[in-house]
């Protein structure tokens, strides 16, 4: 890096490089792809001990566009150093999913999102920490220790993509990939003060993502601003023959319409999000979060949006349905970890059954055990109708609520999480209280629709970031991103 104007320097101190900064720096010859990668690597080596955001780091690999003749167009994410959640496979490198059972597992191929990012020129700094098999909302469930929130290291970064969100917030990466089954991109983005986008189910291929709940999982970007989220989504989205849930068709340029104003757009505010009865003391929407969310809604009004009161009557049942569906699907997905083909295998096992029982007992942590057993129970003979079928019927009602609402409005807004970042250990002893921090994000996964968490300022009491959630129609990430971008500019 050479000369910088004073304004630039201040910006770098606050949140480091955006994708556009990298593009500009590269074009002006301020640094090469290798130099900017090394700058980040060095920073990670220095600061990761404190945060535990990364589980592994990589050496620099020469990029295709560097070798090619300069006549070729520079790809959109050229030389942009990224962090990848450690449940996404990168060929030839360890992928732990935050679990002891995959401690030494080496990926045999690249996930589709990795292949796509390689094509667009991104480089990979390393793999980030997560709750074991993406089961959690605080990154405290990782077998490799908790990740700390860079804004206050006595607090959690959220989860399960806590390592990815912390890495972006601390500028230990320009952007990161996370995965979101019930809020695992948006909630940590909210708690760390960065942007997190869960795309529509079917928008991004999950080939090479270690599955948690296959009917809900989606990969998405965690970035420093909305523009970057639009760029990264464009790079990773699209149909993939390796994931039959991806939809065919052209991926739009998500950055194209960000600048269009949002006058006359109808913004729905669901009354249930502001009076969500959880039945547990102290688990409602925090005042300082509510205050910031209301301020953002006023801003949208100032930008010319029409604010419409709406109702999502079944959203209060989303979390209960979710905690049937996820354990059921997880118990099936994690059945493959049996100590036979890969992963941890119990040394003392005498019979084949013992190999299964002991490998899984030694390899899985408390939360996967809890969820696998809950799933096995709900799917066991005689219980299917009462639990899994019932939950999928409730899911249909939740989806209907959103379909009805989107006849009246273009986007729906509200809080991402009921609270700001909480203290490490605060919710560790009661799994249910931790589950409740996903109360606003879970309904979106059940309905399969896109949503983005935008930092909308710090809470008055805690001075910690609050996330504002913008929810869109299926496959209408464009409007979600446009509203987010316009609001982001207005909040500056």
């Amino acid at each position, binding site marked *: 890096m050479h000369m910088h104007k004073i304004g630039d320097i201040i910006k770098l101190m606050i949140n480091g490089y955006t994708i556009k900064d990298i593009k500009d720096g590269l074009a002006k010859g301020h640094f090469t792809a290798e130099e900017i990668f090394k700058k980040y690597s060095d920073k990670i080596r220095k600061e990761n001990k404190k945060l535990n955001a990364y589980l592994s780091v990589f050496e620099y690999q020469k990029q295709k566009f560097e070798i090619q003749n300069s006549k070729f167009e520079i790809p959109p994410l050229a030389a942009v150093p990224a962090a990848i959640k450690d449940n996404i496979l990168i060929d030839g490198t360890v992928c732990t999913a935050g679990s002891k059972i995959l401690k030494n597992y080496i990926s045999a191929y690249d996930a589709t999102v990795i292949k796509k990012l390689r094509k667009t020129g991104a480089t990979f700094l390393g793999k980030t920490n997560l709750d074991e098999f993406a089961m959690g909302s605080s990154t405290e469930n990782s077998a490799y220790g908790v990740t700390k929130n860079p804004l206050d290291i006595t607090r959690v970064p959220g989860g399960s993509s806590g390592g990815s969100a912390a890495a972006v917030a601390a500028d230990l990466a320009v952007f990161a990939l996370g995965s979101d089954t019930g809020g695992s991109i948006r909630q940590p983005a909210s708690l760390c003060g960065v942007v997190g986008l869960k795309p529509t189910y079917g928008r991004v291929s999950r080939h090479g993502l270690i599955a948690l709940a296959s*009917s809900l999982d989606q990969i998405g970007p965690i970035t420093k601003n909305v523009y970057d989220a639009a760029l990264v989504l464009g790079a990773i989205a699209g149909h993939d023959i390796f994931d*039959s849930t991806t939809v065919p068709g052209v991926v739009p340029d998500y950055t194209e319409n960000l600048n269009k104003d949002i006058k006359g757009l109808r913004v729905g505010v669901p009354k249930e999000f502001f009076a969500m009865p959880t039945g547990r003391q102290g688990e409602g929407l925090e005042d300082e979060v509510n205050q910031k969310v209301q301020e953002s809604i006023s801003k949208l009004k100032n930008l010319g949006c029409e604010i419409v009161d709406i109702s999502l009557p079944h959203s209060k049942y989303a979390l209960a349905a979710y905690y049937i569906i996820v354990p059921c699907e997880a118990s099936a997905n994690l059945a493959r970890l049996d100590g036979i083909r890969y992963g941890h295998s119990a040394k003392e096992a005498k019979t084949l059954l013992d190999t299964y029982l002991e490998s899984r007992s030694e390899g*899985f942590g408390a939360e996967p055990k809890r969820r696998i057993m809950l799933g096995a129970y709900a799917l066991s003979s005689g219980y299917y109708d009462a639990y899994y079928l019932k939950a999928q019927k409730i899911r249909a009602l939740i989806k209907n609520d959103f379909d009805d609402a989107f006849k009246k409005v273009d986007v729906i807004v509200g809080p991402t999480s009921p609270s700001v970042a909480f203290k490490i250990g605060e919710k560790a002893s009661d799994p249910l209280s931790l589950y409740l921090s996903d109360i606003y994000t879970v309904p979106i996964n059940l309905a399969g629709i896109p949503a983005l968490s935008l930092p909308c300022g710090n809470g008055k009491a805690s001075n910690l970031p609050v996330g504002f959630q913008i929810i869109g129609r299926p496959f209408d990430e464009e409007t979600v991103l446009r509203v987010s971008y316009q609001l982001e500019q207005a909040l500056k």
Partner: protein
Amino acid sequence: MISDKEIRHIAGLARIKITEKEEKGLKKDLSSILEYIDKLNEVDTTGVEPLYQTTGLADSFRKDEPRGEFKMDESLNEKLIGQAPHKENRFIKVKSVFERKK
């Protein structure tokens, strides 16, 4: 409340060996989660079709032809079979399923 017997039965189904201490904790945790989940019964779902996926895609067929993305050679074989804890040449070894007659 889930009984001790049920917890042991579920652990068996899930193929997880649990200690007595884990059994106690799981009994408490699973019971409290199931109690929370019980609120689903407040909702009348008569006549509601379950929703298993949201994209509306049905019968996503592709041509049944080799794609050449994964060519089995020694290196891929090593990547896949090489990670098995017990193996012999390019085969995974497992403990016997049936007992031999003596």
